[in-house]
C-alpha cells in the first residue's frame, strides 16, 4: 500500500483535533447554560436569600431571570464590590452597547459618563420599566433636588408634571443640558414664537433659554431672575439694530465694544498678560446678554462655565480616586482664587499664589514648610509655593498633597532620608 504524503497526515490530524475540541467546548457551554446555572443560583441564594425576593419582581434583568449570576459576578474573587466581573459601566456596556451613535454624542448624563449605571437602574429586578430604581420624575428629583428651581411662582407645565423626558434625553444628547433637540427647535415643538410678543424682533430660531427659564420663574413668561438693564427696560436698540431694520438682530457696534461702551472698566481687565480674550463679542462666552438666574448675568453656574473649556479640571473633579479636593473647587467657586477676565499672575490668580492661600489658611503660616522667594525647589530651582506640594484640583492623597506624605512627599527633595 502506498504511503500517504506526510503533509496530508498532519492536515487530517489538525482538523480532527480542532473538530473534537470544538465539539467538546460547545457541549460544555450548552450544558452550563441549560442546567448548571440553576444549580449555581441555588448555591447563591443559600447565602443571599434576599435575592430570591428580587426574583419575584415583575421586571427582571435578562441574565438574572435566567439564573446566570456568574455572567456579572465572579463567584470566587474580584477586585470590584459585590464580586462583579468588571467596573459597573464597563460590565453593563459589554452587553448594552446602545444603538448606533446613541451612546456617542457630545453631551452625556454624568452618571452615564462615569459608568454609574446603578444610580438609575437596578441590576437584578424592578417594578419600574427599564429596571429603573424609581418611577418617572422621582428618579430625576433624587439627584436634581434643587427645590428652588422647581418651586417657583410660575412653573413650566412639563416640569410641574415631572415630565423630564419631555425635553431631556436620559443618556446622551448632541445638545447642552441633554435636551432632545437644539435650543432653537426644542421650544417650538409646543410653542409658537411670534414677533409681536418680542417687541417686533424676529426671534424665531433664537435660543429661548437666553431669556426664559424652562423649569420655572417667579417672573412672568418664565423670564429669568436677573435682567440686563437694557433688556429690563425694553431698550433693545442699546445693543441691537432697530426692529424694522434690514438686520434687526445685528449688533449696533463691532466686537466687545457693544459691551465696553457701557462697561468701560472691563477693558482694563483684559489688558493683562493672561486673559480670556476671545473672538467677536466674547463676553457672551460666559455672560448672558439678556437675562440669567445667576449673579453677574453668568450664563450658567461658575463650575460649568469654567470646566467647559478647562477639561482637565473637570476630569480631576470627577475622578473617584481624587478623594481630596479643595472645598472651593468642589463648590465650583473658581473666581474666589482666579480672575475670570485677566491677570498678570500665572493661572489668572487674583494675587500671588501664596497670598491667595494664606488669605484663608491663616493658621498654616505658623507651621508650614518654608515657602516663598527665599526657598528653592532643588528639583527645578524654582520657588517653592503651596502648589509645589498640594494639587488643589484633586489628589488621591490626604490634604490634596501631590504625593503620600507618609512615604513619598518629603523625599522628593530631601533625598538623604
Amino acid at each position, binding site marked *: 500500500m502506498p504511503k500517504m504524503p506526510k*503533509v496530508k497526515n498532519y492536515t487530517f490530524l489538525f482538523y480532527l483535533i480542532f473538530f473534537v475540541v470544538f465539539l467538546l467546548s460547545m457541549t460544555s457551554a450548552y450544558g452550563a447554560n441549560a442546567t448548571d446555572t440553576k444549580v449555581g443560583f441555588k448555591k447563591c441564594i443559600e447565602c443571599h436569600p434576599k435575592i430570591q425576593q428580587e426574583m419575584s419582581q415583575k421586571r427582571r434583568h435578562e441574565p438574572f431571570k435566567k439564573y446566570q449570576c456568574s455572567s456579572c459576578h465572579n463567584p470566587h474573587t474580584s477586585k470590584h464590590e459585590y464580586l462583579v466581573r468588571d467596573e459597573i459601566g464597563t460590565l453593563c456596556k459589554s452587553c448594552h452597547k446602545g444603538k448606533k451613535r446613541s451612546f456617542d454624542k457630545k453631551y452625556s448624563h454624568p452618571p452615564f459618563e462615569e459608568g454609574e449605571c446603578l444610580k438609575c437602574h437596578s441590576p437584578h429586578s424592578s417594578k419600574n420599566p427599564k429596571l429603573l430604581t424609581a418611577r418617572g420624575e422621582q428618579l430625576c428629583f433624587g439627584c436634581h433636588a434643587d427645590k428652588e428651581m422647581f418651586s417657583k411662582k410660575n412653573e413650566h407645565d412639563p416640569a410641574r408634571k415631572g415630565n423630564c423626558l419631555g425635553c431631556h434625553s436620559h443618556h446622551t444628547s448632541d445638545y447642552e443640558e441633554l435636551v432632545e433637540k437644539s435650543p432653537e427647535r426644542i421650544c417650538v415643538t409646543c410653542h409658537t414664537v411670534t414677533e409681536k410678543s418680542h417687541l417686533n424682533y424676529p426671534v424665531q430660531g433664537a435660543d429661548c433659554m437666553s431669556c426664559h427659564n424652562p423649569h420655572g420663574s417667579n417672573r412672568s413668561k418664565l423670564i429669568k431672575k436677573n435682567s440686563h438693564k437694557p433688556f429690563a427696560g425694553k431698550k433693545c436698540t442699546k445693543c441691537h439694530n432697530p426692529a424694522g431694520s434690514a438686520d434687526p438682530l445685528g449688533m449696533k457696534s463691532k*466686537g466687545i465694544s457693544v459691551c465696553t461702551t457701557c462697561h468701560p472698566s472691563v477693558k482694563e481687565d483684559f489688558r493683562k498678560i493672561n486673559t480670556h480674550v476671545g473672538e467677536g463679542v466674547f463676553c457672551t462666552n460666559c455672560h448672558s446678554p439678556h437675562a440669567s438666574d445667576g449673579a453677574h448675568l453668568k450664563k450658567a453656574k461658575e463650575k460649568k462655565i469654567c470646566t467647559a473649556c478647562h477639561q482637565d479640571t473637570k476630569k480631576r473633579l470627577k475622578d473617584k480616586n481624587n478623594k481630596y479636593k479643595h472645598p472651593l473647587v468642589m463648590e465650583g467657586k473658581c473666581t474666589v482664587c482666579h480672575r475670570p477676565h485677566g491677570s498678570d499672575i500665572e493661572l489668572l490668580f487674583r494675587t500671588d499664589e501664596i497670598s491667595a492661600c494664606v488669605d484663608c489658611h491663616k493658621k498654616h503660616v505658623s507651621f508650614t514648610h518654608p515657602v516663598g522667594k527665599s526657598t528653592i525647589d532643588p528639583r527645578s530651582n524654582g520657588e517653592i509655593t503651596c502648589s509645589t506640594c498640594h494639587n488643589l484640583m484633586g489628589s488621591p492623597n490626604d490634604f490634596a498633597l501631590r504625593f503620600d506624605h507618609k512615604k513619598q512627599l518629603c523625599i522628593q527633595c530631601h533625598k538623604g532620608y
Partner: protein
Amino acid sequence: MYRKINFVILFLSFFLIIPATAPDAGKVRVKHLTSITGNKETGRFNLLGGVFFDENKKRLYFTDTTNSRILAFDADFKYVSEFTAGGALSSPTSIVKNSKGKFFVAEPAKGKILAIDIGEKSVKPIDFSAVSGANPVYAGNMAVDSEDRLYIVDKANQRILLFDSDLKFEREIPVEGSRRLMDVKVDRAGRIYALNTIDGSICVYNSKGNLLLRFGTRGTDKDEFNFPTSLAIDRKGLIYVTDQHKNKVLVFNNNGRFLFAFSQLGWREGRLHRPSFIYINNSGQIFIVDRANTRISVFE
C-alpha cells in the same frame, strides 16, 4: 516540504515584520540636553514667555515676562546678557528676530508689538492702524519666515496678521471654525501652522493662506490634546505640540498622524510642568518653556 514552508515563513518574517518595526527603530529619539534655570548671575526667573533662537548669531533669547526683560544665552547655554530696552519693556511675552537683527516683542497688556533695533537704539510699536477688525488687536505669539515677513496671532479676532519685511500690513489669515488661537509657526516651505487651544486643532495653510490640512481634537487618548499651548516644526516637517495639562510634547507627522509623545509631569530635569511654549532651531534642539518649573528645558 515543511522545511520549505519554514523557510518561506522566515523569509516573509524578515521582509514583513522587520520593516513593520522599522519606524519604531528609526523613531526620532528625544533626549533631555539641559535646563536653563535662574541663578546668581541671571537672578531668579519669573513668569517666562517666549523663546527664539538666532541662527546667525547662535544666540538663544527668551522673555522673562514679569521681570520685564529679555535674556540672551550662547549656543552652549551660557548666560550672555539681559536686555530691558532702556526700561521700555513692561511685560514682554512672545519674541522673534528677523534676519536684519531687528527684534519683535509682544506686549499684549499694552496692546502692542515693539520693534527693537539695537543698532539704531530704537524701540517703536508696530503700526496697527491699517488693520481693521471687530476687536482691537490682542497680540499673542509671533513667527518670522525666511523672507522676514512677520506673523502675529491676534487672539481677539481669531486670525493671523501678516506684515511684510518693511512692517507694512499685508493681509490677514482668518483661522475659522476654531476657538482660542494660541500659536503660529512657519516652516521652511512657507507653510503656516496655527494652533487652537479650546478645540485642540491645528490648521496648516499654504503661503497664500489657503487651508491645506486641519487635524487634532481634545480628549484623553494618546493622540488627543488636553490643553495644547504651543507648536513647532522641525527640519523633517514633524509637528511638535506642547500640552499644558498632559505635561507632554505630542509629535505628529506632516499629515497630522500621531507618532509619539515625550516627557511627563515632573519637577526633575527632563520632565515638564505646564509647558507653555516650544521652539525648535535648525540644529534640532527643542526649547520648551517649562512654565511651572520656571525654566527652559532643552531637548534634542
